[in-house]
């Protein structure tokens, strides 16, 4: 039976199963919890279920079975107002970016801050910082559909980090990046994590986690294995 949630855990999966109709079992009866301020890497083969797990966390998909608690709340019992609150506090860098193609880099990054009615002056400062961190200052006023794929990816990451959210999910954040830019992203993530952000990063890129001692959740055939990386 599910044990009482650990008081400081920000994400709690209890016997969660996700089946896509008709018969794709993406996740099968998995349980784990993530504590506040942790940085967790999610690995697994293509099609293993990493994106599915992240979508469950930000309520883009509903679990077929099981219980998911985010910041102490059962996502099945959330009202639409709670869901909005949760989403405002969760930065997500989607695997397919989900940028607005006809809006500029600046407008795209500003969106999550406008949604929370942040002051224009603060928005400006925050964006200036993020553009600098992602090496995109030159591209500030360019429409995102005129960027290279790697530049778009960095815009997506900047947008996810915009609100300095307590929880940040990044799905394959370095898939289109060269080592130099990968390092920029890793640096940003490390800084955010040190400032208290809980991070979950789905990735195939061993280079970004092999030298850290963060928790690794590996998905295989719908089952998970949790490593604490110290060994490797």
């Amino acid at each position, binding site marked *: 039976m599910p044990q009482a949630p650990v008081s400081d855990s920000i994400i709690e999966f209890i016997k969660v199963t996700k089946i896509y109709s008709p018969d794709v079992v993406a996740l099968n009866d998995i349980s784990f919890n993530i504590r506040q301020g942790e940085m967790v890497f999610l690995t697994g083969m293509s099609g293993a279920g990493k994106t599915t797990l992240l979508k469950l966390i930000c309520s883009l998909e509903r679990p077929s079975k099981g219980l998911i608690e985010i910041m102490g709340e059962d996502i099945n019992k959330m009202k*639409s107002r709670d869901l*909005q609150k949760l989403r405002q506090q969760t930065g997500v860098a989607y695997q397919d970016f989900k940028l*607005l193609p006809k809006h500029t880099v600046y407008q795209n990054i500003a*969106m999550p801050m406008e*949604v929370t009615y942040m002051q224009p002056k603060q928005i400006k400062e925050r964006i200036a910082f993020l553009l600098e961190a992602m090496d995109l200052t030159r591209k500030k006023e360019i429409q995102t559909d005129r960027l290279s794929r790697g530049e778009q990816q960095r815009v997506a990451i900047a947008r996810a980090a915009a609100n300095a959210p307590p929880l940040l999910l990044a799905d394959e954040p370095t898939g289109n990046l060269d080592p130099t830019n990968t390092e920029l992203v890793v640096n940003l993530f490390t800084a955010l994590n040190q400032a208290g952000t809980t991070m979950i990063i789905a990735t195939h890129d061993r280079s970004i986690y092999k030298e850290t001692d963060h928790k690794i959740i590996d998905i295989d055939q719908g089952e998970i294995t949790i490593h604490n990386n110290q060994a490797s």
Partner: protein
Amino acid sequence: MTPRYILIQTGRNLKQTWGTQIMTLITVSLSVFMFSFFFLVYTNMLNTGERLGDHIRLIVYMENEVPPEMEEQLATKIRQFSAVEKIVFKSRQDAFSDLSEQLNDDRDVLFDLGSDFLPPSIEVYPKRDLKSLTHIKLFSDFLANLPGAVKVQYGRDWIERFGSFTQLIQLIVLCSGILLILTATFMVASTIRLTVVSRQNELEILRLLGATKAYFQTPLILEGVIQGITGSIIGLTCLFSLYAWIKIKFAGPSFLEIFTLTFLPGSVTFSILFVSVSLCTLGSYISIRKFLKI
């Protein structure tokens, strides 16, 4: 969320999708124009019907003069069948003086004939509306069956034809009305679908970023309201211009004698404005709801 923010956001929306916006605006204006145009035609047809009715009377020739004490009773009976404007009872003597008045200069012809060769009659002036006009044949049959009635006379050919003609016009207006409502609904639906398609991406992403309902509803609904107001004002302005043009074009006295064109009364104009604004707002609201549900 300050009013300033809402206005900025609405302005930005309008600017970013101006192609679709203009299309919606044209649609709304055109629908309002078409609807109010046919409504105007219909209203003026009713007026014209009334004015044409001015000149219509049915003359019931009687075998004998109606005694004054019976008049009341007969009048009641007639009124029961159909609403009438007035009923005039004419004796032989009245008929004769009418005729001599009509003949005017030639009246000497009549002196040889004596004053009672004309039959007594009842003149019935039907209510001046289209309904009475279209049912005039029925009414005349009824009158012909009154006790003592010999014959009913009226501008039979013309009135009957005009009645049937009016009926046909009513049918056209009806059919046009139905077609218009179909077209307007369909056009608005298709424009909204276009807006939805062009906005889908943006609304979807806003939702993922945790935007509150108010955040995306308010500017979009305001947009619908603006569309509705602008569209119906343009539509009604076009109609008024057309109306003014027709009035100038047909300014001859002989025409206006019969058709005193009038514009839609203020209350109707206002209702059209109100309904179209409501419809546009509803349209925006429905297209937003679609996304809130996802």
